[in-house]
């Protein structure tokens, strides 16, 4: 057993933490959130230069990391600083699928991704799929040497900024079947693609993506026809590990701010942290923080394991983080009082990030059911 980061990961963590502490404060973030694009191209480029994106890909793929603990090292720092730039979407999800499934031509994009010069989005969820990965209704029909896509993709994060979309569509079977789902690499400006964008409550932007007789060449398919499900599930597992680490980082910021506030805010002539009612609550949060960290480590450490072991730990982590995250976000706000409700105070954004993470890749309940099903199997 060894719970220390490797030297490389430790260096990456230090560099990233230092950079974000200097460059990414609440005023900066709020300005980025209110901007039209919802992210900063300058920060994106600088972080790419620091190796943040390269750390998310394996050496074979052209990066220098790509393992569970590489993802958690990067995303914990991004979460700690409340970074809203779409690393999860461009690199881990869409970029990861290209790296996992792409042919040589398609994999050539990975270099651009790592260099920070390509933006991507993963267009998978649909209005009635909720958190099920196999409930794909969007259709892909062959038409000579072309494929024609039709469907509605819901809450596609980073769709407006994306140069290309990785779109899932069904070539055979019914919604709910694992078989029959394919992935396609679709340039965002392809005829028939309509992107209706909106801001997200916890920063960043997403869109409804309408596919209306979108014609693409067969060569746009990623991997084998109808066989994309396993790759999608594995990539969503990686994204979930990245996301729980990001949430852990945000929770650390929330508890740090709350601890500091309890020590400095005075009411009734004494620091409010000296009231036992608050001191005990703070202690409970710190206990849950340790649980959260362990759940993230468990999930990251099993990301390269067999499917059932991997997915069981992913679901365990998502379930626990949903519960612990809600407790930390709500109690941090409560112990601060009104100040935490103001957008200019750091905790406001951080708390939103923590809670809204439960709405991506499956919430607490979804993963509880999934954990039960995986344990029974």
């Amino acid at each position: 057993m060894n719970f220390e980061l490797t030297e490389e990961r430790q260096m990456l963590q230090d560099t990233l933490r230092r950079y974000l502490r200097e460059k990414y404060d609440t005023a900066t973030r709020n300005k980025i959130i209110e901007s039209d694009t919802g992210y900063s191209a300058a920060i994106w480029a600088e972080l790419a230069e620091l190796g943040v994106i390269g750390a998310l890909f394996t050496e074979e793929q052209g990066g220098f990391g790509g393992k569970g603990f590489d993802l958690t090292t990067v995303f914990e720092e991004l979460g700690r600083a409340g970074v809203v730039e779409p690393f999860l979407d461009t690199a881990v999800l869409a970029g990861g699928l290209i790296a996992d499934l792409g042919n040589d031509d398609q994999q050539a994009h990975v270099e651009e991704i790592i260099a920070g010069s390509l933006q991507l989005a993963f267009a998978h969820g649909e209005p009635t799929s909720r958190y099920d990965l196999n409930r794909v209704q969007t259709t892909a029909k062959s038409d000579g040497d072309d494929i024609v896509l039709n469907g509605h993709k819901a809450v596609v994060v980073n769709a407006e900024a994306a140069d290309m979309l990785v779109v899932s569509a069904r070539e055979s079977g019914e919604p709910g079947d694992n078989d029959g789902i394919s992935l396609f690499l679709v340039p965002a400006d392809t005829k028939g693609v309509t992107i209706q964008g909106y801001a997200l409550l916890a920063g960043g932007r997403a869109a409804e993506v309408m596919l209306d007789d979108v014609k693409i060449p067969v060569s746009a398919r990623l991997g084998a026809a109808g066989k994309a499900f396993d790759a999608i599930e594995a990539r969503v597992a990686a994204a979930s590990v990245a996301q729980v680490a990001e949430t852990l980082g945000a929770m650390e910021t929330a508890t740090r701010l709350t601890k500091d506030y309890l020590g400095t805010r005075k009411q009734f002539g004494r620091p409010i942290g000296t009231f036992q009612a608050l001191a005990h609550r703070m202690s409970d949060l710190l206990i849950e923080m340790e649980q959260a960290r362990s759940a993230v480590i468990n999930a990251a450490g099993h990301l390269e394991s067999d499917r059932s072991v991997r997915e069981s730990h992913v679901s365990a982590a998502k379930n626990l983080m949903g519960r612990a995250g809600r407790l930390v976000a709500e109690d941090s706000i409560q112990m601060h009082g009104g100040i935490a409700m103001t957008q200019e105070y750091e905790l406001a954004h951080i708390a939103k990030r923590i809670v809204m993470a439960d709405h991506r890749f499956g919430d607490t309940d979804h993963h509880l059911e999934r954990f039960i099903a995986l344990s029974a199997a």
Partner: protein
Amino acid sequence: MDLSYSEEEKAFREEVRTFLKDKLPKELSDKVRYGGELGKADIERWHAILNEQGWLAPNWPKKFGGAEWNAVQRHIFEEEAAAHHAPRIVPFGLSMLAPVLQKFGSKEQQDHWLPRILNGDDWWCQGYSEPGAGSDLASLKTTAVRDGDHYIVNGQKTWTTLGQHANMIFCLVRTDKEVKQQEGISFLLIDMDTPGIEVRPIVLLDGGAEVNEVWFTDVKVPVENLVGEENKGWTYAKYLLTHERTNIAGVGFSQAGLTAVKRLARAEMAGGKPLIQNPHFAARLAQVEIDLQAMSTTNLRIISKAAAGTAPGVESSMLKVKGTIIRQEINDLARRAAGAYAMPFASEAIEGSNAGLPDPLSAGPVAAQYFNNRKLSIFGGSNEIQRGIIAKVTMGG
């Protein structure tokens, strides 16, 4: 023991329903129902409709132009108003300041201010909290120094709800620094147009700007705007707080909220079936519904006692704590139900959207409401303060 309403109470409920069906404008109820933002004009419009009916001030005595309803009638009205998605009555003038003026104000103050409140001539806001005086309100530092026929006011108030609409503010100010904190506070009425007042909006985490900071720099306030006696303001403030706590349980809001969650959960699909059939979600829903049923009866028990003339004491603190926990739990269920569609920042009014279709518009700003309503357990005496009161009253010390 009889859990049914009396014939008179049933007839009253019918009367309220008929009124709401006939007189509540759909534009307003749609905004409430789908989480749209109510503007100043919307609220003034609803107040005017209620005033026309004589129901704007249910808790005022008839001699001041109120409806003088008993506690059960008020409860019935609140329940029906929430069920019909009526806008909430803005309480600052009507149910916070007015009872203080009626009990402690001079005849001149009553004759001047009370009709203006009913007619919507003034929009009042509350100047209580300060950056350094939240839960510990008595430590407030805004000063009022007597200078001839005026007080000169200096300081800063915060969390002033809807202060951006207000032309008048009632304030707690310090008029004596030498005595015990609670004994040096006075209750002043201040015209917001007086030179030296500045209102700055506070942007909240849900994107809304409903609260403000109000700054006072050498603001001249005529002495006739002092309510009651100098340095007795804390007594009046405590009296006001007991009125702020009527409808503190928010049963009507919770019932309307639960109905909305069920509607959402019937439309949202999970695993190819409506979410409402999902056992885990159904269990969460049932749990909060069971709690709400019990609290509703607790509320009625306390209200009945109040109707019989016993002033609610520690019970109002209990209702505040339990009521806010339940409302916040319902907000949590609503955001859960919406799934990925809780993520969009839908703070804008969503008139004209296709209710029932799961898209970012029909889910409404459920997550924004969840975050906004974290305030419920913070304001009006935080739940920690309420628990302190409960402990003190029931266990001494």
